[in-house]
């Protein structure tokens, strides 16, 4: 294809299908009739097999739901067009010459279909995850209302447990992890000078698994008989005997995990193969380093949570006995497998945030990142150590006694690379020219709160203290200092920082600062007292508690409503500024990294000419320093695999 023809295709809007083709073309109309067909298959297949085999009953809820939760989402994905190109290819039909019609957004409608543009997908991810963030937050408001007083007020224990379980599941699997995937999706190709991700169609598919996973978890809550109520950790054998809603949890986690693994593979291949000329690993921005290590973690660890949920599902549906003591199963096996994922998951939820903070602090301090190489290496150290600490979640579980001290030592040692990062950020700020814009405020909020979360982590790594504190509100306080004060603050920092790049508009700085202060104060008032009630003896996951904790729980509940309300400021700021904010320049922060060297929002294939990387990404204060130059003579542009 000639350059001129190529350029023409890029900018031509796809011609809309007409007549019957509207029903067969990928899109929501096709979803409307394909999904019911797959629903029917999911219903008919098990019923037919059970009837043919003479099994009683023919209609078995747990079997039907399990099969349905595989077929119906596939039906949706087929309908929306997630498999079209591959189906053409696999069936031997001529693949349609790539016309890029599924690439880029020309109107808001393009955000609601299969789109192969990493920038569109990044925005799809972020909007979807913020939606689930709000749902997860509302669930928390509901159970905080219940906890305002001891005894049962609004919810029975079943509903309460469902609220708690889904609050955690949505926040972890549908907000924090995919929000980082969304930011990474938008920024990584731009930062490394690529025109898209390595596998754009896989990227689109990864995104569409996510709303499915979220809907499965939400629908699971209102299943007849009761939603999943065994906590997000879903320990066997309790979860094997939960009402039907538990199956929704098992399967929802699978879909979210599949999405996560596919995105991680995509990031890895993109970062390894599609860097612009001159972009060596030691010239990568730290956000890219962070997502590189995170993706390695995801690819290695996430299959383990898939495994744990499959085992539970097999125990339930196929009557196997992996974790059933009566059948010779090994109860603690579940926890070993689960935490072999879920501890690295903590770093999956934190390392991309470290990357965001490195970007924001360097730019807002106008100084190079202090100790760049050690910053990158400490990420790798956390990656390796992260796989050797899982059993610190099991110090009281009754596992082999000898395992406790080694796991304590490795957990303690993780404090060293983490400390290196904290001190390096502080040193980056030292003698800088600090600008306290909203992203910087969230970065500083992160720095202070994450130190508290990290230090309470030291308490918990120490086996004797953990024996006292585990499964109490001290743990709840710790994980919220790490995941809210840590991850969520970095997500906010990242959203504000790249908002002008993504939307081409500037957010309202005053509202951004208001949002920060409300969140920061509300967060501390909500979660700091939990350290105290936990050490004093209040266990987690209880709808009812001892009367002596009544006053402090009332205080926490009121603070948590304030914290929830602060999100309204954020939502208003984002929505209003996206529609009506003042136009943003290409590089409002005067940053050196590549994503800021193009227009806001960037052109449809990111770079009109391939950048030649000539230096480090954070050379602030070095006279005449450049990260990349445009217009250098260079042979062929780097294109995503399979778009030609």
């Amino acid at each position, binding site marked *: 294809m000639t350059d001129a023809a190529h350029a023409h295709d890029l900018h031509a809007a796809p011609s809309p299908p007409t007549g019957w083709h509207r029903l067969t073309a990928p899109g929501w109309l096709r979803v409307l009739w394909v999904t019911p067909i797959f629903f029917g298959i999911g219903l008919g297949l098990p019923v037919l097999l059970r009837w043919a085999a003479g099994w009683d009953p023919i209609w078995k809820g747990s079997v039907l739901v399990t099969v349905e939760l595989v077929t119906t989402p596939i039906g949706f994905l087929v309908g929306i067009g997630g498999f079209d190109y591959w189906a053409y290819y696999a069936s031997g039909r001529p693949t349609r010459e790539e016309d890029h019609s599924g690439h880029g957004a020309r109107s808001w409608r393009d955000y609601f279909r299969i789109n192969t543009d990493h920038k569109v997908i990044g925005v799809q991810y972020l909007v979807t995850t913020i939606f689930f963030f709000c749902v997860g937050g509302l669930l928390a408001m509901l159970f905080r209302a219940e906890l305002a007083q001891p005894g049962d007020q609004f919810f029975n224990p079943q509903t309460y447990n469902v609220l708690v379980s889904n609050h955690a599941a949505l926040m972890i699997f549908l907000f924090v992890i995919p929000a980082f995937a969304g930011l990474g999706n938008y920024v990584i190709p731009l930062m490394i000078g690529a025109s898209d991700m390595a596998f754009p169609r896989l990227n689109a598919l990864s995104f569409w698994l996510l709303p499915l996973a979220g809907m499965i978890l939400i629908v699971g809550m209102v299943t007849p008989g009761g939603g999943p109520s065994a906590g997000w950790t879903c320990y066997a054998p309790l979860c094997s005997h939960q009402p039907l809603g538990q199956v929704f949890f098992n399967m929802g986690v699978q879909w979210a995990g599949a999405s996560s693994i596919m995105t991680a593979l995509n990031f890895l291949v993109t970062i390894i193969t599609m860097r612009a000329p001159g972009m060596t690993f030691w010239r990568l921005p730290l956000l890219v380093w962070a997502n590189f290590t995170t993706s390695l973690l995801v690819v290695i660890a996430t299959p383990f949570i898939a495994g744990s949920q499959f085992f539970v599902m097999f125990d339930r549906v196929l009557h196997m006995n992996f974790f059933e003591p009566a059948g010779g199963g090994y109860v603690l096996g579940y926890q070993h497998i689960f935490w072999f994922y879920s501890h690295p998951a903590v770093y999956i939820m934190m390392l991309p945030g470290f990357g965001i903070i490195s970007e924001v602090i360097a730019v807002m301090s106008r100084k190079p990142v202090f100790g760049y190489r050690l910053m990158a290496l400490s990420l790798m150290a956390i990656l390796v150590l992260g796989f050797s600490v899982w059993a610190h979640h099991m110090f009281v579980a*009754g596992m082999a006694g000898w395992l406790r001290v080694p796991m304590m030592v490795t957990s303690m040692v993780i404090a060293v690379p983490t400390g290196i990062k904290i001190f390096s950020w502080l040193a980056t700020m030292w003698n800088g020219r600090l600008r306290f814009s909203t992203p910087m405020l969230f970065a500083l909020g992160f720095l202070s709160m994450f130190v508290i979360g990290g230090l309470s982590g030291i308490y918990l790594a120490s086996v004797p203290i953990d024996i006292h504190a585990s499964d109490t509100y001290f743990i709840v306080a710790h994980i919220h200092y790490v995941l809210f004060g840590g991850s969520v603050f970095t997500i906010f920092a990242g959203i504000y920082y790249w908002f002008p790049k993504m939307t081409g508009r500037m957010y309202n700085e005053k509202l951004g600062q208001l949002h920060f202060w409300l969140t920061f104060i509300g967060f501390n008032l909500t979660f700091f007292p939990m350290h105290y009630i936990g050490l004093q*003896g209040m266990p987690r996951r209880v709808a009812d*508690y001892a009367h002596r904790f009544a006053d402090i729980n009332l205080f926490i509940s009121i603070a948590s409503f304030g914290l929830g309300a602060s999100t309204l400021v954020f939502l208003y700021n984002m929505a209003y500024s996206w529609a009506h904010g003042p136009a943003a320049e290409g590089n409002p922060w005067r940053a050196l990294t590549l994503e800021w060297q193009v227009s806001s929002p960037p052109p449809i294939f990111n770079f009109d000419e391939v950048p030649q990387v000539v230096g480090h990404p954070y050379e602030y204060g070095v006279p005449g320093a450049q990260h990349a130059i445009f217009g250098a003579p260079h042979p062929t542009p780097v294109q995503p695999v399979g778009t030609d």
Partner: protein
Amino acid sequence: MRRGSIIQLTAIGLVAGAICTAVALAIPWLPVSAGEEAHRIHFVYWFVTVICICVFSVVVAVLVYSVWKFRAGPDDDSDGPPTHGNTQLEIVWTAIPAVLVTAISIVSAIVLAQNGHAGTNPLIVKVDARQFAWNFTYPNGKSVGYLTLPAGRHVKLDITSEDVIHSFWVPQLSQKQDAVPGQHNSLVITPTRKGTYPVICTELCGLGHALMRSHVDVVSPARYAAWVKQSASASTGAPGLAVFSGAGCAGCHTFKPANATGKVGPDLDNLAQLAKQANRGSLEAFIKESIVTPKAYIAPGFPDAMPPGFGTSIPPDKLQQLVQYLAKGPSQ
């Protein structure tokens, strides 16, 4: 660095440290220590706290100082000095945390070893957890729903579960251990301070989890010796009440004579009325059926949450006592 800024930085650090120390001391963060193991755990806690306050103060000092001193003016477009790193500094802040966490690890490992030491002649008590009750069995066969322990003697708990995972915790004794079905875990406690403390289940074990509570009475050795000789029923009043507590009914049901306040299952104070609604034979027959084969009839508006194993886990004579106790109604 100038001398003035070092003094300012140190001053901020000292103020931050002083505030943290005040917060650490003024608020009673830990419950009263009632046992030897708790004493040691509290020691580790304070050891870690001192280190954490130092680290936190350093971070806060640098952060506050930077925010205060390095703020750029509104029209200041200049960059900071291009410092890329400082190897000595990086070695220092790698080595010092490494030393600190090593120290914490060593102290923790020693305390862990000491806290697992039960001495030569421990009192062995079997702990059976089930949804939603604790059952404690003494060497002489006495079996009750709460713990009574002599002060000053090592106690080794042999903990297991009949259904799902539970976790045994007495905040004042600090020790905690999961009760896992299919395996026996041991936990050493050495109560030293007389008093009554709560026993709490800390592992989510189902709908009655929040109310899966009991208590431990720490008494003098002489009183313990007398107590352990008494038969179980003599010490707890109505024989049915002991079965009621031991089977964990209070986790889910309200029943005034037993001070039970659970809300998961039907209110047992209204049993007579419930039996009429159900219309499944006499009151006694209805109660017995509901305990032994709970799925036979589920009261409208309640979940199918009654554990299925009571028919086998409660011996027939005890079951009879429980049925009579419940049939007598709330005014006994």
